[in-house]
């Protein structure tokens, strides 16, 4: 029942996407602002109607944004949030240039809380581990999101700091099924990110 509803929602989202300008991302090397990524096949660039996205952010999906998405958020400067919010009182957490891995992990956790809305989701992170993006040291970690009136989501996050700016990539997908369906390709794209 739940899956049926999801597929229906995805179909509607996909249909509206066709109308409002989803575009296929060509597989292979691509650049998002100054971030280079090796795009896997089958991902579609979501239109700018994603109101939570910062400028220069790209959000891609395979089956619709409700089911899976990968986002590339390049060059977040000191003092700025990772997403936008239409609410002035959203109290978005901001990036600070001296953040260490544990704080970047917390920044993302709190940002995802805001992404779903205060009180609508419980976010937990785990498996914080080092990863080198190109030749820049950074981190990877996993995310679990329990969301009100929604399927659970799982995700993988990559992040690194260069030139006092944060580069942040995440894959989030509904559980069961959709997270595992594209995890390998999504994690590969995140790990491929470099300047």
């Amino acid at each position, binding site marked *: 029942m739940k899956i049926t509803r999801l597929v229906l929602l995805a179909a509607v989202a996909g249909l509206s996407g066709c109308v409002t300008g989803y575009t296929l991302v060509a597989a292979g090397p691509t650049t998002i602002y100054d971030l280079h990524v090796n795009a896997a096949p089958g991902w579609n660039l979501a239109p700018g109607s994603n109101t939570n996205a910062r400028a220069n952010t790209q959000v891609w999906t395979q089956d619709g944004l409700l089911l899976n998405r990968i986002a590339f958020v390049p060059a977040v400067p000191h003092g700025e949030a990772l997403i936008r919010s239409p*609410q*002035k*009182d959203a*109290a*978005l*957490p901001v990036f*600070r240039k*001296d953040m*260490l*891995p*544990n*704080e970047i992990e*917390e920044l993302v*956790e*709190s940002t995802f*809380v*805001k992404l779903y809305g*205060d*009180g*609508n989701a*419980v*976010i937990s992170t*785990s*498996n*914080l*581990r*080092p990863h080198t993006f190109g030749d820049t040291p950074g*981190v990877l*970690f996993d995310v679990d999101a*329990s*969301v*009100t*009136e929604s399927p*659970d989501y799982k995700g993988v996050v990559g992040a690194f700091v260069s030139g006092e700016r944060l580069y942040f990539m995440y894959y989030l997908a509904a559980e069961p099924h959709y997270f595992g369906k594209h995890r390998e390709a999504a994690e590969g794209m995140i790990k491929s990110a470099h300047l």
Partner: protein
Amino acid sequence: MRRTATLLAATALLAGGTLPAADEEITHSIPPGYTPEQERDEQGLWLEMEEAERRLNHSALLVRNPDITSYISEIVCRTAAAYCNDFRVYVVRNPNFNASMAPNGVMQIWTGLIVRAESTDEIAAVVGHEIAHYTRLHSLQRLRDIRSKSTAGGIFDLAVLLGTGYNIPVGQLAAMSAVLAFSREQETEADLLGATLIANAGYDPHASYRVWLNILAEEEAAAVKREDHGMFSRTHPDSEDRARYLQSWVTSRYGPPDQETVSDERLLAVLNNNYLMLMEDQIDTNRFGRSQDLLERHAAMGVDPSLVRFFYGEMFRQRGNEGDRELAIAAYRHAIEEDGAPPAAYKNLGYLLLKDGDKKAAQEYFRTYLDVEPEASDRAMIEFYLEE
């Protein structure tokens, strides 16, 4: 001697903007064990809520820890007295302050209420208010009011409102505004009946306004004030009005409070046993003025100092204002000295010392972290810093 006012008289008094006299009773509108048998609209409302309850039962945000659920259920049962078996209580993991009551007896208590209570009496005050909504058939009154003011679209809106706590009025704003104005009167009625219920159950009725004074203090401490309080404030009297009329009414009826708020061991045990979950959710809201207000309150209440100091460390470190790093380091050190600090206190103190350039001390704390948390999921990250 108190006399019993009729439903009509009580409603008229509230609608007129004055409170019932302190010696008047606002009574329940239904008997214990009530189920709708004749009214089709009410039966429909219950069916709608039963479907919402089925979804709620599968929610990953439902708290299933019996330590918390049995504590809340006991408060509900004691306050509800003869109506105890009419309620099904769900504790929902949500750091905001709220509780809700559906017309079929499904009560939701958010964890944000538990973390803000200074006593069990205060939780009982909110529970009593919700019980009053149920026994006064307020939801049914609202449904009928909507039906008299709008089309079927409005009924859908109400279903969304009752099921989720949020309202999505589409082209129904005028009608909804009228309904919500009516609802504010119901809220006042529920406040007064709720205060009576907790007094009858042996709780301190003065808790009914103290809970709102705490909310006012938290709002005062907030760095970012809420611009839109959402459904809760539009349908409820504001906290200041509420505290004022409740204090006046309760004091007239029961006399002045005979003592200041005293924390109870049962609430303290629930907070201590679940503090990590409750405060992590609060810290994740990134609302540090509010978090600091809560921590000050918890310290005064006697919540385990190692836990309170750990979260002071978390709050200062994540807030990141000038001087916060030093405050966070001191808080983590105090938490560790208290014996009983969460393993993350060692790790996060280590990270702060790393920032300060004290690599040797940082590594000492990282090693201790791995000793006390051998299954740490971030072991690879910590070992990266140990090997540097």
